[in-house]
């Protein structure tokens, strides 16, 4: 049996914080920390010409974060996916404590933290091999609805909306709004919806 196929427990981090963390059933048991999109932040970073180092990329991402959200980047952990063939990169940020203190706490309880990811990133990575180059990938969860727009394999926009159960607008309206903001037509994108509220989107 391969260790790679070992199942990992999931610790959900909701808007109100992480669920209670149990002690690991055995030392070194795998744990994935899954942060709700309600607390995660996303944006699209255009590839700057002549980017020479990670420090510069970090500064640029932090600067954009502060400009878009108005928060202090020092309180957040920011990660960029620097895809080599893309002109636009998806960036994700989660509160610093979930990327540093929480894994430390989990390790102290005997867990081996394998992944710390936001819900959208995790769902996208699970489904990406089946997605077209022109896709509106949506995670319709109980806490929020996240819609990402991909055109010709490149990220064009991403937004987090209220959950469909609490939204006055339906999924189609939300998608139209996001497409309009990204200067896209909904006709070119194939919507793919996952999550517990996907039935409401359909």
């Amino acid at each position, binding site marked *: 049996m391969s260790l*790679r196929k070992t199942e990992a427990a999931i610790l959900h981090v909701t808007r109100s914080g992480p669920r209670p963390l149990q002690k690991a059933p055995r030392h070194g048991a795998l744990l994935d*920390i899954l*942060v709700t999109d309600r607390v995660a932040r996303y944006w699209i970073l255009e*590839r700057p010409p002549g*980017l*020479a*180092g*990670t*420090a510069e*990329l970090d500064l640029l991402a932090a600067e954009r974060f502060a400009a878009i959200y108005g928060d202090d980047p020092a309180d957040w*952990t920011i*990660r*960029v*996916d*620097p*895809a*080599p*063939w893309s002109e636009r990169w*998806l960036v*994700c940020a*989660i509160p610093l404590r*979930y*990327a*540093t203190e929480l*894994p430390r706490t989990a390790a102290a309880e005997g867990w081996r*933290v*394998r*992944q*710390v*990811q*936001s819900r959208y*990133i995790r769902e*996208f*990575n699970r489904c*990406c*091999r*089946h*997605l077209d*180059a022109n*896709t509106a990938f949506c995670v319709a969860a109980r806490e929020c609805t996240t819609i990402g727009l*991909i055109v010709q*394999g490149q990220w064009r926009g991403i937004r987090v909306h209220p959950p469909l159960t609490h939204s006055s607008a339906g999924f189609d309206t939300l998608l139209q709004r996001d497409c309009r903001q990204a200067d896209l037509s909904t006709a070119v994108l194939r919507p793919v919806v996952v999550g517990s509220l996907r039935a409401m989107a359909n």
Partner: protein
Amino acid sequence: MLKPLAIDFAPTRRSVRPAGWLASGAGAVLLAVAGFAWLPPAHVEASHMTEASQRQRVLPDGDSAQAVDMAVRELNLPWLAVLDALNSEFGPGADAVLLQVDTDVRRAIVRLEGAANDAAVVQSYPARLRALGPIAEATLVGQEVRGDAQSHHSRPVRFVIELRMREGT
């Protein structure tokens, strides 16, 4: 079909390839053998104990202590983890190949010279490398396009990247 996003906030590297396990195992065996080699035989140890009361204990001088500190620091650098990271990023099927690897141990720097198909691939490497646990910083020091359309270089973009290893991990 789209590629997965390389976004993970986990503080350490997720997986170690089989080659990494082998290298780690070999390193552990080497350390164990070296450790036994350093252990003095029992009679030598006993003679040291009897002589200990007769001679004054000699402490290393400043230079020696500094040399020991430096040696310990070098041993503590994450060599195997860096090798594993390079193997995963520049192994078979990668977008670029390594031509030369140099190290500056005092500065905890690894200097990579390589070749790639495309400048965009090269520019993405610093961020990709820095995302790996044992690497604290990665900087693209330079890149140039070799040859012209007639030369048919398979990997025309040469590059130099400097990595600073994460210390104390």
